């Protein structure tokens, strides 16, 4: 199973900006559920920097073992199976970092996140970025870029969504965006001119009405 797993390729140091943004959003001393937690980097930072009581969900066995080794609470679960067993509103925050675009059914999982957590934090690569879009239109081929580094025929990123897509999706499922942060060149900004065309990553704090 794990032989041909596609590694999440944005190395940690490149996405540190993304983690910093998430950590910034989280109130100290809260309970955080990190979906697709990888080797537990975010959760161990949250534990050390924000005194957070964390729990991760990860399917890849090697990463799960790393979490246990780091003393991170973790569950081997497939996010496409939902969050059965997690009680309603049992976490202050549910985090879905760089994983939304890889889910079979993002709508089902985001609804589950809103059920389990008071607030959800979702980061995703913005397919609307003008360079990506330009590449798409100019070459007429599915672009391969820093945010979408795999060719279409072998990629975990099965959905290509834009910031505007995400905004209307949140409205569609009856939730609301409390905060938006846009990441460009590893710099997070709360205000950005034309974010849908310029941001490389979107990060949204959402909650149910």
């Amino acid at each position, binding site marked *: 199973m794990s032989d041909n797993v596609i590694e999440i390729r944005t190395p940690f140091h490149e996405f540190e900006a993304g983690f910093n943004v998430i950590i910034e959003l989280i109130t100290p001393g809260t309970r955080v559920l990190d979906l697709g937690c990888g080797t537990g980097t975010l959760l161990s930072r949250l534990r050390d920097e924000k005194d957070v009581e964390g729990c991760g969900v990860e399917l890849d066995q090697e990463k799960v*073992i790393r979490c*246990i080794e780091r003393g991170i*609470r973790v569950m081997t679960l497939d996010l496409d199976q939902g969050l059965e067993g997690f*009680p309603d509103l049992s976490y202050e925050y549910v985090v879905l970092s760089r994983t939304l675009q890889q889910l079979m059914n993002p709508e089902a999982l985001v609804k589950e996140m809103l059920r389990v957590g008071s607030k959800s934090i979702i980061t995703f690569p913005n397919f609307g970025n003008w360079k990506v879009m330009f590449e798409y239109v100019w070459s007429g081929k599915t672009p391969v870029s820093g945010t979408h580094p795999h060719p279409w025929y072998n990629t975990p990123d099965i959905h290509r969504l834009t910031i505007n897509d995400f905004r209307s999706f949140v409205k569609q499922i009856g939730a609301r965006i409390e905060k938006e942060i846009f990441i460009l060149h590893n710099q997070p900004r709360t205000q950005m001119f034309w974010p849908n065309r310029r941001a490389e990553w979107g990060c949204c704090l959402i909650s149910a009405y």
Partner: protein
Amino acid sequence: MQASSDLNNQNISSYGSPTRTFYESFEQVDLESGVRLGPLTVAYETYGQLSPGKDNVVLILHALSGDAHAAGMTENGRVGWWDGMIGPGKGVDTNKYFVICSNCLGGCKGTTGPPSPNPLTGKPYGRSFPRITIRDMVNVQAMLIERLGISKLHSVVGGSMGGMQALDWATRFPGKVKSAVVIAATARLSPQGIAFNWVGRNAIYSDPISACGTPEVDSDSVRMGRGLAVARMIGHITYLSEEIMERKFGRKLTLKDMDGIRYSLGENEIGSGEFEVESYLEHQGAKFMERFDEDSYIIITKAIDYFDLESQYGDLTRAFSTVESKMLVLSFTSDWLYPTSMSLAIVRALQTLKKNVSFVELDMPFGHDSFLIPAAMPKLTRIMRGFLNGV
């Protein structure tokens, strides 16, 4: 046998030097059935050093056919059943932890069980041994721990039946267990598990020699009954997986000149098997006959069959409501006897109660017995070390 409750005076065995089995005697134990069983002896081994604060104790809980000899080597050269996991620098590090493993109640390796003499008759209990439960086994372990002057365990760790005991520990002794590791276990045995145990016991019951229930059969003059061996063979099939049988044995034959025509129909005794898988099972069965007691097998499998926290408490969330320990639940993808779904049932109930539970499903081909297989040790070691460290 020697009762010795002062651990400081014991020559504590450690990996490298021959291990020693200790014995503690108790006047009696009150069983769940209401029967009072006594006197009672508990066999156990220890590895590592007890810390001055007595706060580094890891209690290891063995499975159906295990015993107190979990690690190290006996004087006769027998290696412990989880030696790959327990020892200096290993997953359960004896440089750090004081490890205790006792033979379970009803066993046949030093703790009172069917082969032990019934004080009323002077003869072995045999099948007149009282009915026992997983709870009774845990109560006896708790008596031992108390006798050793230990009030809190750093962790209880068990696989299969040992995992059931670990669950019971966490459920009924929340203040005494800081953490529990539940490996390839279930909160209630499945009908499939009950079915296999039933067939195993039936092999023993239908054995013309053991059927009479007299343990004094002269084994020199009478061929020993093979019921227990057959039970073990059935058990072994359920502990493996289709994949590992294919990898380990394939369709290989034990004899080169064997073909599909001149096979044996058991004319010459049962033989040692023509296919390698047959010969493996035969070997496992024969070995088991030498080291296990059939009445222990019956009494312990019955205890496993009746283990059902769900019906005992109404439902699992009620059962686990008392849990305070940090929990780690482990399952194996290829385990079809205690499949992942059963571990998940435990995990979900603990989650519902917002308990501190981690769940690891390991992708391993070795079936239910994965936790005992040397090839599984590197990963299991990292997990155990990491988890015990974080308790």
